[in-house]
């Protein structure tokens, strides 16, 4: 690995991972940071309804309102996971109910492929999830938040997913094996 160049990135990373709450000290216990992209018309409304019904759920989730799940760019998701979120959730209307006709169908295809790609590249399953929650499904919203928070809490902070030295050494061998003729002459 390059020696010094990673320092800049590593610093940014550690800052992101060690970020604490506004007034919380560094000594406060770790709490997961979960970002949920929610479409304005269904899931955001469902979350509002959960509030109206005074449902209780863990406070580790932060909703980010978007007009439609089709607005969520996989780049937003990857950026959130890289910069310090321990889990990311994308939520939209049930297929067929999209306020914008087809946005969630596109989101579904994109996210199905992207999620597999992320997990293929080593993201632990569960860190990135997608759910369809309608405006009337306050209960489903609450249950989803509870279950996602629980899963992420069990997994621990994102930083704990960093591979061990043994795994890295094994990876080097595999990478050398994966080279074809003509590569890296």
């Amino acid at each position: 690995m390059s020696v010094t160049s990673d320092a800049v990135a590593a610093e940014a990373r550690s800052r992101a991972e060690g970020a604490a709450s506004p007034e919380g000290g560094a000594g406060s216990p770790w709490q997961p940071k979960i970002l949920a992209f929610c479409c304005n018309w269904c899931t955001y409304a469902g979350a509002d309804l959960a509030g109206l019904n005074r449902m209780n759920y863990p406070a580790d989730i932060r909703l980010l309102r978007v007009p439609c799940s089709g607005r969520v760019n996989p780049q937003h998701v990857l950026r959130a996971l890289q910069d310090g979120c321990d889990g990311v959730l994308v939520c939209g209307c049930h297929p067929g109910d999209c306020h914008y006709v087809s946005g969630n169908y596109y989101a579904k295809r994109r996210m199905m492929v992207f999620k597999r790609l992320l997990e293929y590249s080593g993201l632990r399953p569960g860190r990135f999830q997608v759910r369809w929650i309608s405006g009337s499904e306050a209960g489903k919203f609450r249950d989803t938040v509870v279950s996602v928070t629980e899963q992420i809490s069990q997994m621990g902070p994102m930083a704990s997913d960093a591979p061990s030295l043994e795994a890295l050494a094994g990876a080097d061998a595999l990478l050398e094996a994966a080279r074809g003729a003509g590569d890296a002459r």
Partner: protein
Amino acid sequence: MTANLTQQIRDRARDLLQSGTVSCFIAWEPARFEHWRTPVTIESPDEVDRIVVDEWCDQLIAKYALQRRGDGRIGMVARGCESRAVERLVADRQVSRQDVYLVGVGCTGMLDRDGGAPLKKCEECQRRNPVTYDEMVGETVEEPRPYRFGEVDRIESMEPEQRRAFFDRMFSQCAMCFACRNVCPACNCRSCFADAERVGWLEKDFGLDASRYWGLMRAFHTGDRCIECGECERACPMGLPLMTLMHKQVRDIDRLFGPYEGGGLSDAGPDPLRSYRTDDVEEFM
């Protein structure tokens, strides 16, 4: 590839240039060392003897057509990969099919200029014969359609930590030179997201996060349009196994949304991630 292929192609290029059918002809010429080849664009019938077409022509030349847009019809040698690349460029509306004139050749795979071993991209090739051409030189060749997901199988069978390690190591070696993008026929955007200095898009700090972001997002942007030419992997100066990200998506898309093709092989409509079916598999309920 037959021994006199070079001569046949030279003859065809000369005729096409002389008759005015094409304004230029893209092929390869010998480089300084034995077995080294470099792409060349011939503009005059007097220069066709520079052309050589043999088992050492490792570069994919189709994308060179983009820089000749608007200068008349572009002639080109088209193996399976070039023809698919042209179809890709057509599907992305970067050239129109009639702007290029493809002299098709069946291809039995290219060899490494330094060791003579078959190139990995050719050993995984699914289309040795051109899928479209304006004329064919020589016979079509057998299509062995080898299994290309061996590496995906292996990586999928690993634990998340091992996979993370594998890709951490792989991306740590990325030089951020963008050779993969610049040779990729599906990377035909006028301006790449990586070149946009925007908050949260792509850092320039050469860190692991940046190269992972680049690697995954480029793979995703081309995931449903990859023609599986393997050129990214060949061009990568660090020799990173980039095609594993593409093959992964190709297989997923194939399994989830129906036969994968990467554009241009049929009139199947827009690419998988810009189309949908109401009865698509549901896993997010």
